[in-house]
């Protein structure tokens, strides 16, 4: 099982993650990132990885739980 971890000091709310995986990530109106589901399913894994890779500030990572 993988878990999405966010470093909030690095997040700038750009939303590349949301563009890659809209069911997992959503930038809120105040610029902060909401992780909608921090345990992506196996079917969502590829999207979650793409989202982590797409983050320009390397604020996101996937860890094995």
């Amino acid at each position: 099982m993988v878990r999405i971890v966010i470093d909030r000091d690095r997040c700038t709310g750009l939303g590349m993650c949301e563009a890659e995986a809209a069911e997992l990530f959503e930038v809120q109106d105040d610029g902060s990132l909401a992780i909608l589901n921090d345990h992506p399913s196996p079917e969502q894994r590829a999207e979650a990885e793409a989202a982590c890779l797409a983050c320009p500030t390397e604020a996101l990572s996937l860890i094995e739980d």
Partner: protein
Amino acid sequence: MTTTNDQGAGSYRASGFEGQGTGLTQHSSGNPDRPYDEIDLSTEVFWSGTMDEREESFAVLRRERPITWQPPFEDQLMPVEDDYGYWAITTHRHLVEVTKRPQDFLSGPGIVMDNLPTEFLEAAQSIIAMDPPRHTKLRRLMSAAFTPKQMRRIEDQIKANATKVVDHLIEKAKTAPDGWVDFVAECGALLPMHNFNDMMGVPDGVRQKTSHEMSVMMSWGDDEITGSTREEKFTAIFNALTFMHQLSKETVDERRANPTGDLFTALAQAEVDGEKLTDHEIGSFFVLLTVAGNDTTRQSLAHGLRALTTHPEQRAWLTEDLEGRMQTSVEELVRWATPIMTFRRTAARDCELDGIQIAEGDKLVLFYSSANRDETAIEHAHELDLSRQPNPHISFGGGGIHHCLGNQLARFQIRALFIELLTRCPDIVAGEPELSPGNFFHVVKRMPCKPFAN
């Protein structure tokens, strides 16, 4: 690193901007003993040609000498004695690496290739010429307005604006004697102007002036627009900036009294580290956003329409399924257009880039046009392929902290425009674009188009 003798803008120092700004600008670079490469990317002639012509030089460099030391740009608006040049970054992989090393390669000292008066730069660049931590805090103020979710909220408005500008283009074509009209003035420039200013909160009637002033300001390399003498250019630049900062201050004062949901209100109310933004900071943000919102997307639209005209087989593929095939097509047209051709960075310390020793204070110039044709990163990079997937183009940046804030807005706009245009004017053709000389934005100044075949 000592700051250079700033030859500034002479009498234009009485511009009202002196003493304000970030104080980070640096003009100097390198040393006089480092030899230049035999291929010269800095001549005025080089930047007065076409992208294809420049690509001939870039292709050689990517293949044989990917990182080279270049002289300062030849036709400097403000020559600087101790600016000895820059490192030219021509490959996709190096552009991405430099982008992702913001602690080594700073934006604060300046992000354009040319030397321009400090007061001008610091009244116009805002967060694009800042580094963390301040960059992070200010950028966050704007992020929510530009996310995919927010774009979906305003998608109906984006589509309505696309309809409006295509209506306008068709009207103009009907009254033109031979059916030819300027796509830029009557369509391409108008769409991003309306969408951006709807978000910003600049009303119709005023937004035309802000767009015009910013396009003039960004055309410092084009004598037709800004005049041929330094004095005329500086006057144009400072008039534009003064107008924008004045409008910003008036609008902010108004929004503090009567807040709305627009970006001006967000800036007026914002607090960073417990302090409101200064008028100068908000004015600079307004300038940056206006330039970024107007002068980039319009280039993708113009270059894009020309590409569709010159590649009929690609266009035919797209029009078989406009809705289904537009997503990859938008990416490919943005790669093809490369609206911003160069950005600059400055080395924060002595460091290494793929074996090349970079000295503290050295400038680097990233060549986006070259990276977007790098065959080691993009297969058949010299071919337009609207079905291309994946498309690792770097028109929105190399994936770093300054990645284009408006990338979703741009994509939504380009998609809406081409679906509307190709549906209502399926026979539209574009003539050859007239380019603006310059080394920053890939500007199409004018481009004739004929919306209807009859």
